[in-house]
């Protein structure tokens, strides 16, 4: 306890009342003044009078709980005078940081919610959550969404399959839908989620275990003047043996109940055959007709599948969009390199190229010869953004392949739509601009619609100006790349 070897002051202010908290704050202010060794401003209760004695003062006579006592000990009289001059201000001071009653001070001052469930509590009318946190955390957030009564689009990848199954079972139990994990695209209630093209409304309901596959389908339908009712993504693994089409089954039921859906299309990365077979049997029992575009060996590619759908709807198949570069490039022999952001497109390229060219390596960056790489695969996206948004990895590989004399044709996907890179063609054109004297041919699949925010024709022009071919149909792009290679042989 400090003893006031210097100057001291104690005073009783009879009948003066301040809230004890205000007094504590005033005491702190005065105690912090220069040269002050101890200060206490308090109502003169027994307890406080004891404390004032502890500070080294005489106990003031006649002071009671309804009186205020001011006690200050300082090193010298000047410091004491200065400290006492601060007492009035300290007693009337308002708490720091208080503003004049504007936004942020009242009970309604809102903070951004920190969990999906907190947001759902604020907005009970919400039905859908979009989860795109890093994979290791995605299950937790998606589970939180389901428990809050929300269906969830899980854009995140790198989610263990056991947890995917847990999510989908929980959703089924609650009458909700989990789209994903690794759901690249969805259209629900007129809104595109994830990577989403601006497509027109219409009669086709899509269940997609494939992100870019569904985008290709929707964009081709759009080019043919046909719109969609909904596109429910289910994640690339949904038709695997482990997951067993848990979400696809739920999604089919929803589309069957949707009066706007006249025809259901299921597109999936190569499925487990038994799962696919069982699903096809179940699909035939729905009131709404279901067609399956399962990208398995021997099955039609996405373009042919779209054409089948159009015929089924009685819509003429149009000539698919195509943009040729200004100067025709002489083909040169060599390897095919497919550098993709879209997994389903990469798989389709791999299947078509294998049929025509023989063995094609897959995702093996060290391979020589024909190679298709999906830069959106899990192993390339740990800790980084999807290549449709951050094309750095693909650009790096593209620059290397441009300079590689053993490469004959480079095949690329350029995906437009909401969520995608704002100028993917411009990004590619910048890399293509520095290519060597005798470059490989460049063929691109331009997946987009006229209504997409990037301006599809403008994007096509950037590609053709850079010497690249651009095809609205990915299968046609692959076919053209194969033709170029075969012609050069």
């Amino acid at each position: 306890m400090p003893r006031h070897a210097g100057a001291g002051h104690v005073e009783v202010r009879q009948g003066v009342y301040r809230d004890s908290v205000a007094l504590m704050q005033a005491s702190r202010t005065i105690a912090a003044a220069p040269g002050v060794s101890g200060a206490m401003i308090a109502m003169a209760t027994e307890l406080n009078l004891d404390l004032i004695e502890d500070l080294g003062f005489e106990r003031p006579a006649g002071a009671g709980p309804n009186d205020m006592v001011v006690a200050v000990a300082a090193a010298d009289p000047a410091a004491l005078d200065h400290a006492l001059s601060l007492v009035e201000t300290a007693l009337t001071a308002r708490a720091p940081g208080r503003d004049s009653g504007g936004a942020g001070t009242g009970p309604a001052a809102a903070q951004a919610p920190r969990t999906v469930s907190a947001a759902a509590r604020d907005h009970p009318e919400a039905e859908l959550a979009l989860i795109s946190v890093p994979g290791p955390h995605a299950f937790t957030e998606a589970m939180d969404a389901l428990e809050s009564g929300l269906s969830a689009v899980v854009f995140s990848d790198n989610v263990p399959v056991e947890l995917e199954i847990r999510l989908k079972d929980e959703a089924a139990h609650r009458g909700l839908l989990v789209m994903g994990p690794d759901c690249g695209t969805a259209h629900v209630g007129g809104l595109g989620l994830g990577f989403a093209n601006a497509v027109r409304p219409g009669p086709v309901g899509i269940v997609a275990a494939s992100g870019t596959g569904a985008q290709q389908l929707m964009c081709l339908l759009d080019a043919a003047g046909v719109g969609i009712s909904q596109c429910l993504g289910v994640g690339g693994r949904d038709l695997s043996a482990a997951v067993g089409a848990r979400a696809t089954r739920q999604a089919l039921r929803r589309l069957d109940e949707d009066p706007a859906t006249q025809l259901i299309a299921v597109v999936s990365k190569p499925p487990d055959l038994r799962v696919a077979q069982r699903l096809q049997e179940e699909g035939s029992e729905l009131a709404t007709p279901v067609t399956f575009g399962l990208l398995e060996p021997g099955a039609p590619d996405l373009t042919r599948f779209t054409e089948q759908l159009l015929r089924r709807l009685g819509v003429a198949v149009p000539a698919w969009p195509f943009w040729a570069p200004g100067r025709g490039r002489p083909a040169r022999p060599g390897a095919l390199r497919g550098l993709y952001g879209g997994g389903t497109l990469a798989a389709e390229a791999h299947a078509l190229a294998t049929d025509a060219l023989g063995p094609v390596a897959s995702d093996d960056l060290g391979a020589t010869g024909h190679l298709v790489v999906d830069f959106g695969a899990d192993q390339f996206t740990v800790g980084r953004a999807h290549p449709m948004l951050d094309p750095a990895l693909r650009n790096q590989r593209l620059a290397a392949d441009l300079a590689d004399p053993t490469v004959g044709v480079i095949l690329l996907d350029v995906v437009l739509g909401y969520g995608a890179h704002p100028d993917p063609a411009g990004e590619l054109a910048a890399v293509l601009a520095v290519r060597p004297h005798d470059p490989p041919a460049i063929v691109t699949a331009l997946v987009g619609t006229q209504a997409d925010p990037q301006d599809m024709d403008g994007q096509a022009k950037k590609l053709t100006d850079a010497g690249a071919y651009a095809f609205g149909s990915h299968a046609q792009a692959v076919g053209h790349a194969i033709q170029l290679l075969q012609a050069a042989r």
Partner: protein
Amino acid sequence: MSARPSPTRVITAGAGFLADALAAQSGTVSRVDWRPPPAELAEPLATVMADPRRAEANAIAIDRVLASTAQLVDVAPAREVLRLENGAFLHAGPPIEWARASGPLRGALIGAMLFEGLAGTPEQAERQLAAGTRIMLDSCHHHGAVGPMAGVVSPSMWLLVLEDPTDGRRAYCSLNEGLGKVLRYGAYARPVIERLDWMSTVLGPTLRDAIRQQGALDITAITAQMVQMGDEGHNRNRAGTLMVLRDLLPAIAEVGRSAADVAAVARFIGGNDHFFLNLVMPACKLAMDAGRDVPGSTVVIAMARNGTDVGIQVSGTGDRWFTAPAPVPEGLYLGSYGPADANPDIGDSSITETAGLGGFAMAAAPAIVQFVGGTVADAFTATQQMYEITLAEHPRYQIPVLDFRGTPVGIDVTRVVRTGILPQINTGMAGRVAGTGQVGAGLVRPPLDCFRGALYGLAERAPAISFS
């Protein structure tokens, strides 16, 4: 989600560009301010989140907590109701031995030895406590009891006995001594012991007779009212104290005590704004104990500090304590005391926050935030933050200025770990040195490590997940 959902609102968590993409389509977007929890906790978190028992278990635990009510039914010595023998002492927080006990806990134990007549001087008491022969130390929580600050209970101390009328469970708490140099803050000088003597010879028996004469007193109802009168039930109990005095005073006057005793009892209760704290705490203890032992539940059932460690108990992990070193509260100091004088956090009074009062009900008692130089807006912020980490809103404890929204209740270990938001506790500060007493009051949050430990404890009991 209906078969054909209308484009109402999408809640987004994660990449901002995807939320931007929705906004660009004129979608209504609610963005979660998601921040990653520590990377190494992702797997135990997912394991607990995947536990198929969890959601139902939490619903059961919360229902039980919210259904519990508390009545003051008796006042009696600890020797009778807790069967404490001579030399037995209960203390606040998780279990601790003398060697690791902090100054205020040691001070309170010394005082209790003197009060019980087991030692003639503080030095003698200290020697006996250090030797440990014929001494039994245990956590209040292990005996259905709670104690503010050091929380020391000895056989001759009189306890408030609260009962849940629906199932007859009981919880216990000592009588509040007032502020300043008091046993629970570690003081043991003669006036402290004399006050304890008076409490066990006059106050306790008078209250016992009064409550027996007039019948059980509904503490839950008074607590609900006090929250609407500016008390948060931890650092501010003024309205609650006056209401309990109002309700008991007629009976106190009628049970045949001398006018001097009646006046002394009335003056003591009316002059101690914290008298009701010792009724709120066991009411909260009854409520939280109702939620114990539901397998799979992630609800925090107890938060308690012994001045050295902070410990929490969780419904799904039984009686196990998850502890971490206690931090020093931030706040305002009495007189010339400063941070160097303050002991680390101590007391069972954080049972109030566990049950949705105290720091969680700060918006109901804006005066409290000034303990840390805060603003009224801080009070709202504190309560609103606590909704992030809790599972329910208390149907009885309603905050008028939040449109009678219920206080946040039911701390969920997973939400604490996910958000990094730690429970807000309003508290008193004891002097670090035994015998000092109170040095201030302020705010404190328990360490994340308590919740980290609890998460691992819950994950151990959940079905294993393959993360390969």
